[in-house]
């Protein structure tokens, strides 16, 4: 995947470049806003990682210009500000996701992956499949090996997020944001508890485990079941 990284801080940029490079992405880095607009509009990237504080042109202005120029590439905004109003401003400007500094590289990678594979809006998906697990979005019904698995609404939401990202890591904060709408991390392990229930329901009558735990990163739905 080709990723455009707009980040003025050399240390952060090197850290992200190296990390994403190791994961097989090709990273092009620019250090100011004008370059980001220029490259983002003229070259074909799969995603843009955009710092909010850029010299020349502020991150959100870069984003607005790109969106005004009909650039539909997914954009993940990085910010040192974690305030409530800041996040809303970022999403309003057309960001697809938002990550507060400092962040773990696994978190950034997982979120980028989720953005990269996001299907075009025109493709209405009715059904998700991962191995022998299927999820019928219209009927909100989950089956494994043809047998219906009854799930609570939250367990269903967890599974849907995992299956939309089958084969890729979903982090704890992604679960909190998508399933609960929380942009904070409660002390109580609410994600783990729901996941363990979901897992035991999916495991019933089967020998293997379709959801893997990726230590220090999150969880992953095995694409092959």
């Amino acid at each position, binding site marked *: 995947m080709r990723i455009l990284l707009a980040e003025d801080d050399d240390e952060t940029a090197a850290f992200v470049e190296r990390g994403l490079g190791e994961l097989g992405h090709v990273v092009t880095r620019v250090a100011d806003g004008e370059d980001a607009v220029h490259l983002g509009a003229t070259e074909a990237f799969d995603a843009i990682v955009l710092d909010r504080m850029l010299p020349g042109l502020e991150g959100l202005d870069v984003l607005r210009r790109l969106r005004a120029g009909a650039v539909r590439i997914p954009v993940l905004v990085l910010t040192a500000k974690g305030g409530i109003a800041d996040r809303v401003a970022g999403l309003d400007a057309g960001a697809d996701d938002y990550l507060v500094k400092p962040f773990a590289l696994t978190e950034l990678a997982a979120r980028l992956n989720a953005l990269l594979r996001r299907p075009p809006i025109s493709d209405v998906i009715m059904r998700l499949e991962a191995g022998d697990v299927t999820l019928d979005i219209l009927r909100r019904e989950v089956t494994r090996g043809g047998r219906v698995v009854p799930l609570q609404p939250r367990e269903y939401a967890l599974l849907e997020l995992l299956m939309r990202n089958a084969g890729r890591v979903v982090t704890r904060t992604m679960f909190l944001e998508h399933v*609960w709408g929380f942009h904070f991390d*409660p002390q109580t392990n609410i994600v783990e508890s729901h996941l363990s229930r979901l897992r035991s329901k999916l495991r019933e009558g089967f020998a293997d485990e379709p959801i893997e735990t990726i230590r220090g990163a999150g969880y992953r739905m095995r694409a092959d079941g």
Partner: protein
Amino acid sequence: MADRRSSAAYRIAFTYAAAFAAAILLLGAAVYFAADAEFRQQRDMAISEEVADLTREGDAGPEMAREIAEREAAKATTQTFGYALFDPGGRRIAGSLDTPRPPAGLSMIEFQDAREGPDAARAKAVDLTDGSRLVVAVDSEAIEAIDGTILTLFGIAFAVILVIGGGGALVLGRYLRRRLGAISDTAAVIVAGDLDQRVPVGTSGDEFDTVALAINAMLDRIAGLMENLRQVSSDVAHDLRTPLLRLRHQLSLVGHVDGAAERAIEQGDELLKLFGSILRIAEVEGGGLAQGFAPVDLSALVEDVGDGFRPALSDGGRSLRWEVEPGISVSGDRELLAQSIANLLDNATVHTPLGAHIDLMLDADDQWARLSVADDGPGVSPKDRENILRRFFRGEASRTTPGNGLGLSLVSAVAVAHGGDIAVANATPGLRVTIILPRLKA
């Protein structure tokens, strides 16, 4: 005197005195000119009447001379009018007014006063039928005397006002400077570093006392905030030392002990979370959130959060019950309210033993929505209950439990930011934390 010139108090007092004196001066001038004009007009009328009176008696030389002599004799002592009769040749033939023949009509003349020498007078001259000219005159001295009296009176008044006003200005200026000086002296002492100083407040309850009271209230508030800031800074420094030391220790083990690096990262994450909490509280307490407030269905939110927590709580060996009155809405920030409920549940979980029951309740009256989380754990000692809302506070009994002592501080800040309040009570046994929020009318 240099500082007196630059003093607003003296400037105001002196300006006031000068304005008063100027007003007296103006009044004096007006009285002087009005009186002078009036007297002159009356004098001219008196002369004309006297002339008319004389000419009625007879309008030929000899009779007139006799009449003049009579009147002069009668009025010798008062000397109101002076008379002169000139024959057509211009020679004075009667009357004691010693003056050359004036032209006909009203005019100012000069005559020889027997005692005082040359003197000015107002005269009217008319020609009689035989060609002789009658002159009746009044000495100007009387009017000049009255004019002089008026001028003298107002001059004295002006001088007195100037002296009294100036003295008053000095007294008033000194008084104002003394009262204001007390305030600026206190301010100077505070600037120099003594924050305990307060402006002295008089007993009269006047404007200066009102200002002094307002300034003192402001100083109390600032001192409170400073104390809070000092407390928080030292708490932050103190509470960050422990995790930083742990992190340092863990880092020193990297390369020697398995998993040390992962544990160091975890401890780094904990530190970041701690900073996140501090910043979040600062953001909430900083104000300005209200402009982003929107109606939030609190009933649904409480059920939602409770529902999200129940599996985790039961996995942790505690049971959660909730009793939620439907249809209660507040104006607020959904995320912060959710985090507050989550913090209350976190708090109840962390401080209770296995098997504890946690009750989440929401009800409301007309004005207030009341959300409470109660547990049947060991509760909190009355002494700790007072401090439980303080930042970084960890009760004696919970030194070893997870958490950073910021959870309830955030809940408190969120409640206050929403125009509500927080209360901590004994649930016998256990602890009940209640927040009230202004209810949004449907």
